[in-house]
């Protein structure tokens, strides 16, 4: 456990220093843990586990948009699990559930417990379609077509800077829509 969490902290430090690959690895590493915790939280609230992926994606978006609130001197896991808990509580409340989130739902997940897998989630996809055309194009291109920022810029005759702006605004707008819908 300790080893895994130290590794996350190191990856996040590299990510904050500008290492995109480290950031990618970190997000992939934490996702199964978040997924297992989300499933456990849903099960406890008597909800079907198939909504777990929506919650996982919401947590990942919040982690991304709030990563500047992480103190690089502090371990990463408590910060991550706090966001996870908040998002799980929000999601259960939105579904009209009385909330009993176990404080250890996130921290308890054992390594290897959750298989590496990826799953589609309905909510992000649905909200994606409500974004302005340009943001949607850029997000689709990078997410679905795995295009780089450079390729996306060429495809839509935009500058790379404009692609970056549209990408960030799209992610922020998506998060706001998920929160308020």
């Amino acid at each position, binding site marked *: 456990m300790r080893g895994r969490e130290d590794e996350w902290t190191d990856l996040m430090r590299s*990510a904050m220093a*500008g290492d*995109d*690959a480290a*950031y*990618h690895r970190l*997000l*992939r590493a934490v*996702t199964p843990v978040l997924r297992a915790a989300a499933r456990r939280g849903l099960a406890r609230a008597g909800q079907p586990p198939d909504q777990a*992926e929506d919650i*996982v*994606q919401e947590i*990942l*978006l*919040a982690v*991304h*948009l*709030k990563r*500047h*609130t*992480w*103190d690089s001197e502090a371990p990463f896991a*408590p*910060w991550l*699990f*706090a*966001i996870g*808990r*908040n998002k799980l509580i*929000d999601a259960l409340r939105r579904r009209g559930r009385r909330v009993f989130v176990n404080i250890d739902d996130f921290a308890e997940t054992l390594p290897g417990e959750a298989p590496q897998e*990826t*799953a*589609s*989630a309905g909510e*992000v*996809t649905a909200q*994606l379609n409500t974004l302005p055309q340009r943001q949607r194009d850029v*997000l689709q291109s*990078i*997410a*679905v077509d*795995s295009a*780089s*920022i450079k390729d996306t810029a060429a495809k839509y005759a935009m500058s790379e800077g404009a692609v*970056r702006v549209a*990408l*960030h605004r799209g*992610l922020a707008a998506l*998060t706001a829509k998920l*929160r308020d819908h």
Partner: protein
Amino acid sequence: MDTDQLIRTLAADNAHRVPRVGALLTTGLLVAAPFSILIFATFLGVRPDVMTAMHNPFFDAKFAVTLSLAIPAIIISLHLSRPEALMRGWGWLLLLPVGLLAVAIGSEAMMAPAMPMTMRLVGKNSRWCMLAIPAMSLPLLAGALFGLRHGAPSRPAQAGALAGLLSAGLAATLYASHCTDDSPLFVATWYTIATAVVTAIGAAVGSRVLRY
């Protein structure tokens, strides 16, 4: 969109950087301050006998009380902008102004009273005080909430209440230089009511705008 695709997209946005919440809170307060000062300069102004008043320890005590509210409230609101942060271990800082007021009230009680207690308590400006402090707080509260919106507080209403406390503390510091009621009894009553109003507004607005 599947989760791997989302992760790839987030990684592509890693270059985007947001300033620290502290920097944004400072910006918000600096942008808001001229509005509060404008209200102060238009409707209130520094009391004319300020040079004499400065020799009165109870006049000076008002600033100690209001700043001992504003500064800890700023520190705690920044602390609470982190998702894993708890109020535990920090709340005692908010007892500083209460302690200072208690000491000031005690000192005043030991002196020969210049005025009857009811007059010191009610003062001449209680209605102004209850109006002016919230009015000057509102721009600062908006500025504080703008800055704190970039944080990720686990309890948005609590963070909003702290934003209310810090803006009321700053507004009360301005107001203290106008008001001729220096009795700690007056401060303990009317400043507290005004602060409570602003704190309640901060909590109500914060519970909406500080969710992330």
